[in-house]
């Protein structure tokens, strides 16, 4: 099987290790990975700020990039950016015939990483040879939870990682407070939301916070670091990575 990788812009620029881990995880299952280099961003920052025209323009570019790739699936290590393409692209182009069909076609191909691993590749963590020492809680990003409805898949994968103990935590369904530009437009409220998650994290006894979204992790990790917290924040792909720890 061959898949095309969609690496969100901030993962590309800030967390390239997450994309590297994604490639390794996919390859360890014998999947051929392509990376169409013309890709940039899904347009979500503009869309969430109400700049629909600009978002459409960026989305049009991304659709073109993946139309030139023949892979059956487009795999993305982010619930939020996957939801933007799979859920909101068809909405964004709702009233534009032609573009709407293109949006729906890409929406049908894009899969968030854990969704792809479990539901398409039929993989378990044991197939990957994942090992990770730690007590972890899982945070589902809100798009992952509600727009994609992919909740069980990451937990199932984590449950199979050797050495990892998956813990429950309080109010796990609450948003971390990132919300894209919300975090800078409403910093005080956003930070109060993060603090509630930090408190729940403290109560859980976990030493690691795992998510399928580096954006939530950037927010909670940024708050944890400011508070001098030792909790590790890791993307699911990094935990699953059979070569975890090896630097490119």
């Amino acid at each position, binding site marked *: 099987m061959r898949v095309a990788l969609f690496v969100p*812009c901030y993962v590309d620029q800030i967390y390239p290790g997450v994309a590297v881990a994604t490639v390794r995880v996919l390859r360890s299952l014998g999947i051929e990975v392509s990376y169409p280099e013309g890709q*940039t961003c899904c347009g979500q920052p503009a869309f969430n700020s109400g700049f629909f025209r600009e978002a459409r323009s960026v989305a049009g570019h991304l659709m073109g990039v993946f139309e030139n790739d023949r892979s059956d699936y487009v795999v993305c290590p982010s619930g939020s950016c996957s939801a933007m393409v799979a859920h909101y692209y068809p909405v964004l182009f709702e009233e534009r015939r032609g573009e709407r069909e293109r949006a729906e076609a890409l929406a049908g191909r894009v899969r968030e990483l854990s969704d792809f691993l479990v539901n398409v590749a039929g993989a378990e963590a044991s197939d990957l040879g994942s090992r990770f020492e730690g007590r972890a809680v899982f945070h589902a990003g*809100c798009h992952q939870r509600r727009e994609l409805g992919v909740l069980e898949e990451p937990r199932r994968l984590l449950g199979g990682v050797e050495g990892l103990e998956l813990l429950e935590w309080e109010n796990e369904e609450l*948003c971390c407070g990132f919300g894209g530009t919300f975090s800078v437009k*409403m910093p005080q*409220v956003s930070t109060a939301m993060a603090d509630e998650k930090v408190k729940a994290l403290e109560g859980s006894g976990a030493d690691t916070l795992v998510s399928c979204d580096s954006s939530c992790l950037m927010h909670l990790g940024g708050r944890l670091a400011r508070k001098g917290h030792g909790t590790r924040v890791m993307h699911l792909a990094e935990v699953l990575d059979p070569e975890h720890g090896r630097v490119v």
Partner: protein
Amino acid sequence: METRKPARERDTTDRRREGIESPVEGFNERGGRAARDEALRGALRLFATKVVPARNATLAALPEAPELRERAYRIKRETMANLDRYLEEMAEAVEARGGSVHFASDGEDVVRYVGELARRRGAKVIAKSKSMATEEIELNRRLEEGYADLGLEIVETDLGEWIAQLAGDTPSHIIGPILHMNAERVAEILSEVAGEELPPDATVLSRFARGRLREKFLTADIGITGANFGVAESGTVVTVTNEGNGRLVTSVPPVHVVVMGIEKMIPRFEDLSVFTRLLARSGTGQKLTVYTNFVTGPRGPGELDGAEEFHLVLLDNGRSNLLGTPFEEALYCIRCGSCLNVCPVYRQTGGHAYGSTYSGPIGAVITPLLKGDEEAKDLPHASSLCGACSETCPVGIPLHDLLLKLRNRQVEEGMAGKTQTAAFKVFENTMKSPALYNISGKLGRAAQRPLVREGTVRPVPGPLRGWTGSRELPPLAPKPFRELWRGGI
């Protein structure tokens, strides 16, 4: 009520105008202040901890709940498509039963109608049961001020609402008006009324309130209620309460006035069971509220209960402007408060931070729709768009998608501000061009070099200050993924 503050001494600041310079400052500042109020946050969390699991459990125990939600949405959609016809049907049914009907275009219209009615009746005391529609139009203040010569005493009889009124405060939650107060604060307010110190004990305080409010029910000349539903085919007004005050307000005073938003309409009696099964379960986790009142016109010949005069005031106040627009779904709301209860933003700030009658996600949606975007610029941004509101809504209003559409409307109306508009133009151009994207990454790496210390970007002035004030900012990686890919993984 001797100690009740007269209108002019009460806090009547228009909270909408307070400190809103940029589109987002108002909510951030008020919300930020609220989020530092530990007593408030404690009360909010306690309420959510009680109500949300109860809501989930009662709905889970109702196997047809998902189907009811679908039906509720369809009924409301159909009602809005034919609202003029249903309103007419309702009006005819009420008039056929001997009631009066008045279509009010705005709050001023309602004030005039009720004020003139009070004058004609020589009314002195008006008893009210909880009504968000009359809060929306500030009926109490405007009646007291506009009809000062009548010397009206207007008393809220919902316990929470009465306490809010005594304190010169406004409700902070659709169904829990004084959610923001703890027992100590309530005791303080009621002690002042009692002229003696009352303990912060719920039983003692409610017994005291009950005694005081009974006097008002018995002496009231007019009772004013809102409506949870208006049934077009029968002309029946349905109100749900947990305290029984609604029933006293509608049956003891000789005159009953209903102020009902036109969106409260449902076509048929049989539709009611769809909504009553959802409303209390969604709002408080009860299967049904303690009281469900059906009032159809004034007391008929040979009937024992009901007012001598019955007036139905149908309030538009901007609602009909939404019909047939992409925002129409906002009118489907049944005011259960469920979206407030699950909202992680409301959970930190409470209702007053929204600076509007309606708070939480539904408030952030309908306030700009009813009052205009200029009056509530900040509210569509008072959300992380997590979608918990849309998920919980018992009638399926896509609340967070409506917030997105409102943000888009601001952009289309040129309200987004020059800086933000320019920034997204740059964003668009950069993201459409892989070459520009790559150059921007390189420039960013060069620019951040002097600012990165120990794996974090030092706080810098500018738009990122909002982030760096309370959180560490990770720097751009030494190489982006695309370079690593080219180098071989």
